């Protein structure tokens, strides 16, 4: 069976690949959106923290024998705590200043983190085994579906929608939404906003680290894996707009899929299609598809 002369199975496999990439975009841009909303910080270090997540999983396995499943739970907590440390010691001094200062600081943190990992492990990737439970592939008719990739999509979508649910449907989320609009007023109600800000940054960072652990068995674990991803993720954020949680998730997934199909129909364009869309969106809706015009 063929569609526009392309085999059905190739379409499906690119759809799955697109969903996998889209899941990473979604988790990363979700974290960026939550952080930007409350802290007004463009967290350029997000890619480096993603890399750190993957590296910690790799180090855990190779030095301490911590398996994938445990790493998936522990690494986000550890990297999230590291994020809180960054927020408490450095970022908090910048909230009253222009966005640019936060961007510069987090850019500096990125260079620092990447430099540290590069000096120890070089730039070549370290392999990370797919956990035994998820190795192999399942025959789903037209396509042999790699189990691990399916798991990545399911796990990240679960985390994304759980995050959406907490933010949009619970009391904790109401604090976050209100704090994003008017943090001073939320504090005047007696809520400890400084702690809320730290935890939010820690949570956004933990999401990046979770994505990093998920990515470890797919891509090689290397000091540069974060920078490769973060550029695309920033384009995703520009397309989706900063305003909406669901917007970040849908835009991330959608762009991953568009990228995947572009690889089928016109492979030369697949690396740039996201940036072309970014240009178009900026021309038509500068605030992004889901963003709120100011």
């Amino acid at each position, binding site marked *: 069976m063929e569609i526009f002369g392309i085999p059905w199975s190739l379409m499906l496999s690119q759809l799955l690949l697109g969903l996998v990439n889209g899941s990473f975009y979604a988790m990363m841009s979700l974290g960026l959106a939550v952080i930007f909303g409350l802290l007004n910080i463009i967290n350029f270090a997000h890619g480096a923290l993603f890399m750190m997540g993957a590296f910690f999983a790799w180090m855990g396995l190779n030095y301490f024998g911590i398996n994938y499943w445990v790493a998936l739970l522990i690494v986000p907590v550890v990297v999230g705590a590291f994020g809180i440390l960054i927020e408490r010691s450095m970022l908090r001094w910048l909230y009253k200043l222009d966005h640019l200062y936060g961007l510069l600081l987090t850019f500096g943190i990125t260079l620092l983190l990447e430099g540290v990992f590069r000096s120890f492990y070089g730039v070549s990737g370290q392999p990370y085994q797919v956990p035994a439970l998820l190795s192999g592939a399942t025959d789903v008719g037209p396509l042999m579906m790699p189990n691990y990739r399916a798991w990545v999509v399911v796990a990240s979508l679960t985390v994304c929608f759980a995050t959406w649910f907490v933010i949009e449907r619970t009391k904790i989320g109401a604090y976050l939404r209100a704090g994003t609009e008017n943090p001073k007023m939320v504090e005047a*109600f007696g809520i400890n906003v400084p702690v809320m800000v730290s935890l939010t940054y820690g949570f956004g960072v933990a999401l990046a680290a979770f994505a990093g652990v998920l990515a470890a068995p797919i891509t090689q674990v290397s000091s540069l894996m974060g920078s490769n991803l973060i550029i695309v993720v920033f384009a995703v954020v520009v397309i989706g707009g900063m305003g909406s949680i669901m917007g970040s998730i849908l835009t991330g997934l959608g762009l991953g899929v568009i990228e995947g199909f572009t690889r089928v129909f016109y492979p030369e364009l697949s690396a740039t299609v996201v940036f072309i869309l970014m240009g178009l969106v900026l021309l038509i809706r500068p605030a992004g598809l889901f963003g709120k015009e100011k």
Partner: protein
Amino acid sequence: MNTVARQNPIVDNGHNTAKKVLEIRNLQAWYGESYILQGMNITVNQGEVVTLLGRNGSGRTTTLRAIMGLTGARKGSIRINGVESINLPTYKIAHLGVGYCPEERAIFSSLSTEENLLLPPSLSKTEKGMPVKEIYDMFPNLAERKASPGTRLSGGEQQMLAVARILRTGAKLLLLDEISEGLAPVIVQALARMIVTLKARGYTIVMVEQNFRFAAPLADRFYVVEHGQIVETFAASELESKMPVLGELLGV
């Protein structure tokens, strides 16, 4: 740090049986480089309704914001229920039992009416806020529109929501900034009834009001603010005799 300040507030006013809920001494406040409050002195006793009068830009709103720690640098002394709060962060000031309703109302657009209402947590374990049912009885409009986004309400409903919201916290000292501004007379009357009800229940209220006819029958005492200082203070009983002075100071 608060051990000295946490003495029993009733002890330190030997002459007066009324409990001082708010005691502001030589309060100075800045916004960046601008010197706004230039030594304010205000005392509010429990159960009193006090109104700050003054022209636009005289520093009345800044006074309320300074009490909440929402201005730039502050100096002087602000004791709330006997506790010195000048160096406390805003959220700790709220926990001394203060509810602040800002002039711009600050209804959150991404929250529904009910979420807005339920957002503020109880400030203390002992002092529970007003139950939601009682608030809905007082403001039936809010009950009808509880699922609407907060900013879809009419101006009057938003104002009711803004005031109702701080009643939920259990705060007994309310700072209300221009709550009657720009509202229809029927809403203004409803708000006036609410102030009377709250006063009868022992709430202490500091209002900033441009609408003199709204404030005059409600307040026990008045302070007149000019250039960030108190230039005149008098009780409601003196209002009549003070009208010529007020006319000069405020143009009412």
